[in-house]
């Protein structure tokens, strides 16, 4: 079932065309990586789906509604530096703050809200740290707090903006497992990332973005070097092409094949 549908999306920011003719459908159970260079429009696409950016042209719908009407279905995980980690608040309340918009001004958080918070904390494995001030958490724990905050609205769609940036490999693996599990449980997960290896090995589908969608498919389908060279402006001898298995010298990495065989 399609959760997000983007049709002929065109976005101008500050007089510059950032996205052009973007079409994208994401179903439940998919874990999609948006990859592309800086300025390719990854964050812009995420923010358009989120409904905080007004497109110049085209249409975005989330479960057949415009994003502004689908807020309860949207979970957003911004880049880690967007959050005020020095704020005196514990993990519990930071996660609860994700529901502020749902609650409105007059309703106080009730049993359902706290149940959702506990559920989200269980998903990310932070129940034991729920009373800890957010300032005392490690980078990986902070990222999980942001994921839990997004999950606190019990969304159908999870949007992740560069969740791996600045994290070590074990933490990345942990998060990748969590995201894959969330997709397997029926969420649609869309992640903007610069981590190509993580995207190739962990995601069910890759979208190569450079103002427009250059290529879109499962990792095993993206072994043609041309779209990669075009997206990242690299020559045919670049080591990147070995990574994707597109170099004539290297066969498709077994791990990539096995991940996609399993999904």
């Amino acid at each position, binding site marked *: 079932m399609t959760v997000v549908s983007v049709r002929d999306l065109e976005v101008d920011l500050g007089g510059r065309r950032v996205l052009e003719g973007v079409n994208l459908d994401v179903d439940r159970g998919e874990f999609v990586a948006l990859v592309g260079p800086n300025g390719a429009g990854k964050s812009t696409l995420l923010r358009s789906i989120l409904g905080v950016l007004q497109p110049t042209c085209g249409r975005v719908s989330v479960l057949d509604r415009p994003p502004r009407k689908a807020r309860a279905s949207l979970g957003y995980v911004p880049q880690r530096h967007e959050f005020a980690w020095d*704020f005196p608040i514990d993990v519990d309340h930071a996660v609860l703050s994700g529901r502020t918009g749902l609650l409105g001004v007059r309703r106080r*958080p009730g049993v359902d809200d706290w149940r959702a918070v506990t559920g989200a904390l269980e998903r990310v494995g932070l129940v034991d740290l729920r009373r800890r001030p957010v300032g005392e958490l490690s980078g990986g724990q902070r990222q999980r707090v942001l994921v839990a905050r997004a999950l606190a609205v019990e969304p159908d769609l999870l949007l992740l903006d560069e969740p791996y940036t600045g994290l070590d490999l074990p933490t990345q693996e942990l998060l990748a497992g969590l995201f894959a599990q969330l997709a397997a449980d029926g969420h649609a997960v869309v992640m903007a990332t610069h981590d190509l290896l993580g995207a190739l090995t962990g995601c069910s589908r890759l979208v190569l973005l450079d103002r427009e969608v250059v290529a879109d498919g499962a990792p095993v389908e993206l072994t043609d070097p041309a779209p990669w060279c075009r997206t990242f402006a690299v020559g045919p001898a670049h080591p990147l092409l070995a990574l994707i298995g597109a170099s004539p010298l290297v066969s498709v990495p077994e791990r990539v094949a096995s991940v996609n065989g399993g999904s």
Partner: protein
Amino acid sequence: MGIADFVRDLFNPDLAFLPKALLMAVMASVVCGVIGCHVVLRGMAFIGDAVAHAVFPGVAVAFVLQGSLVIGGAVAGVITAVLVAVFSQNRRVKEDAVIGVFFVAAFALGIVIISRAPGYAGSLQQFLFGSITGIPDRDLVTVAVTGVVLLSLTFLLHRQFVAVSLDREMARATGLAVFALDLVLYVLVTLAVVISLQTIGNILVLALLITPAATARLLTDRLGVMMLLAPLIGATGAVVGLYVSWTWDWPVGGTIVLVLTAMFLVAWTAAPRHGLLARRRVATPDVHPRAPALAEGAE
């Protein structure tokens, strides 16, 4: 003069202005303490400073027209706050620059206006540095009512303010009216400043907003506790400050601020978890095992 004398003076009918000043200072510091928590946590102390100066032309106009200083200051402060909020939506000029433009302009306007008024020098000093005499009963009521309204609004919108302070983009994405909430917070700060002007003066009022909240932040990692501690610290500073000021005939605004500053410095040194002494204690075990090795190396 001992504390007993101070208490006796408080109930002396010839010194009726003294309990009024005390009540005024305590009310102001409680309101400023609570709202100051949001100011400190959002890193908008400079906005507080701006608003504090921006109310000056309104107070000056009210003084010239013999109107209510509280209402005059509130109008000017709110106009400036709205101007800052609107102009800073333009990303080309950053908010702090916009604030820098408007608050000095407002202050300048206030000085020009008040210089046209009769008895200008004395009243100027009173506005800038505060005074404990000449507080009309009417103002006392205005401050009390305004204070209750401000605190109610702050509690009502608490979760919204927190969500915006934590993460603006996320707040916007979840459907919060971030701009409107910013505006409301600016107006709250403005009114808190205005009701505090009388005793502490325009230049020093920022301390009432920032210092108790900053002190409370040093003492706790819990927002709820911080928002209880800050007004308590502010009120203590107001009472002790007024006592010291009355006893030694020091200027009241300056004395209150110095008492608050002393409390901040004590907290900075001795706070249980984040104070200088606590950090020393935590650091000690790390230093000891290495110290002999370092000493050997040096020799």
